């Protein structure tokens, strides 16, 4: 296996007024293609920040993040947006579905940025919703779905463009045990069956058990 994600000497600081708040210090790590990596650590350890930097939704203060050969820290805003649309699938703790759109329309959203025709988009969306087990809930709005179902729609939205990596930030953090188990099984299936490279941020040891590798962060350092 080759490293699909290469993080070199990555640092990130936030500024509050003139006060620098360091979050990550000189992080270096590789993630192999098809790997299922769990980033663990207590609150404030910098795991979500690291995930955001790898997914290209935040900018590092120093260092490089190379994903599938692209140094994303060097991309401009619109190039980075375009890169995200085809390379990264993001799953959030609170699902972040668009409430006025149905499950089908939510999953279809990323495909609006592609050149696929309407019928092609429909095929992709239906296939993806079937993968996550919601083929019969396509016309439902988020408020008509349970938390677990909403998260499955969010996962479908994340994978519908067949991204290079799938990143998930506390994907089970807002779910009951049963739903959480279903989501973890689904993510595990996406990794094993569909060969997706997965990075999951979690502070739940049970959630991390599915991962092939666990990394711990503490106060911005890999330990």
């Amino acid at each position, binding site marked *: 296996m080759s490293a699909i994600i290469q993080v070199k000497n990555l640092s990130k600081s936030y500024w509050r007024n003139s006060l620098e708040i360091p979050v990550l210090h000189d992080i270096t790590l590789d993630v192999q293609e098809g790997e299922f990596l769990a980033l663990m650590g207590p609150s404030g350890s910098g795991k979500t920040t690291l995930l955001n930097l790898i*997914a290209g*939704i935040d900018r590092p203060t120093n260092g490089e993040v190379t994903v599938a050969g692209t140094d994303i820290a060097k991309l401009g805003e619109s190039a980075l947006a*375009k890169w995200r649309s085809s390379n990264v699938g*993001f799953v*959030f703790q609170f699902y*972040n579905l668009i409430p006025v759109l149905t499950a089908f329309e939510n999953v279809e959203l990323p495909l609006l940025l592609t050149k696929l025709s309407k019928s092609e988009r429909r095929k992709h969306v239906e296939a993806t919703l079937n993968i996550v087990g919601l083929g019969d809930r396509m016309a439902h709005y988020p408020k008509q779905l349970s938390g677990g179902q909403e998260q499955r729609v969010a996962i479908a*939205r994340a994978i519908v463009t067949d991204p290079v990596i799938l990143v998930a930030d506390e994907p089970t953090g807002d779910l009951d045990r049963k739903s959480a188990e279903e989501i973890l099984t689904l993510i595990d299936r996406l990794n094993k069956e569909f060969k997706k490279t997965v990075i999951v941020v979690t502070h739940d040891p049970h959630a991390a058990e599915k991962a092939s590798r666990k990394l711990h962060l503490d106060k911005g350092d890999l330990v």
Partner: protein
Amino acid sequence: MKVFKLIFKNALRHKLRTSLTILGITIAIIAFGLLRTVVTIWYSTVDATMANRLITRQSVSFIFPLPFAYKDKIQSVPGVANVCGAVWFQGVYKDKSNFFARIAADDNIFEVYPEFLLSKEEFNVYKKQRNACVVGASIAKQYNFKIGDQIVLEGDIFPGRWEFEVRGIYQPKNKNTDATQMIFHLDYLNERMKAETPARANQVFWYMVQIDNPNRSAQISNQIDAMFKNSTAETKTETEKAFTQGFISASGAIITAMNWMSFMIIGIILLVVANTMIMSARERTREYAVFKTLGFSALHLTGLILGESMLIACLGGGIGLALTFPVVSGFEQAMPKGFFPFFFIEPITIALAVIATLLVGLLAAIFPIQRALGTKIVDGFRFVG
């Protein structure tokens, strides 16, 4: 799913708020249209004037008369093509609320005012009958005057009972031509003045002077006024436009206030729509972060927010504009008859309402767009609305 569908769904997310905003725009556009119509109609009487017409009146005020004798002298000024004497008769037709201009004028008025279209046959009949009158098409329609009808006026400036017979109905050549006048023979008035009040005979209130070359209006005006300098009735000659402007200047402050008010209404509604859009954008801060995460660019987000703002503004503006027509019509009905010589929505009013609607939609979106684009994705996810 099309982006427009998303814009539409976003706009209807808070139905009550959106409905109230649309209602606000609708009312504002109606008010704007009505005020602008009054203002433009007021000024269109000035626009309807002709550059080749001068008005000669007493220098003190046009309520003081000028002698008949001035007519030939004015006619003798080089460049003067036609001179027509006129008297503001006023009088009451049945009731004081039935207001329309009643003017005694020389028969060449239809040459001086070619925009009053009267058929040759009707003019010939009018010319021959002493108490004949010609009425504008608007008042003919309004009072159901037909050829041969009797019109009886109770005189006030010129007391007594005055009987007229309708012998012609003139049509307006242009949309802004005044078709609310009743015109009758100056001779008819003068004959009766000679018999009843000789001191008021052989007088007009003003002369309408048609000139060959509008570029010489100042020179001809000076020449006319110079002829009567130091006489008992000195004259003031000015273009018809200046004369009409002077006439409406008494109402100038009110019209100016209405003009300002019409634009202030647009300003207020801009703030209302902007407030709606700012609230909407603030509530959707996390969603915009999601869109950005999914790869939607700044242009996409701009389109979503601007589209929603434009949709709300255009819905309100469109309904408002459509309702402006019946409202203006109702307003005209509610006004005393003949208060306005004509009353219609000018194309410029429609154009201004459309421009105002589009501007409101555009400007109201600027701040929310700036905010949505300026917020980093990670800050968007942390936002608690």
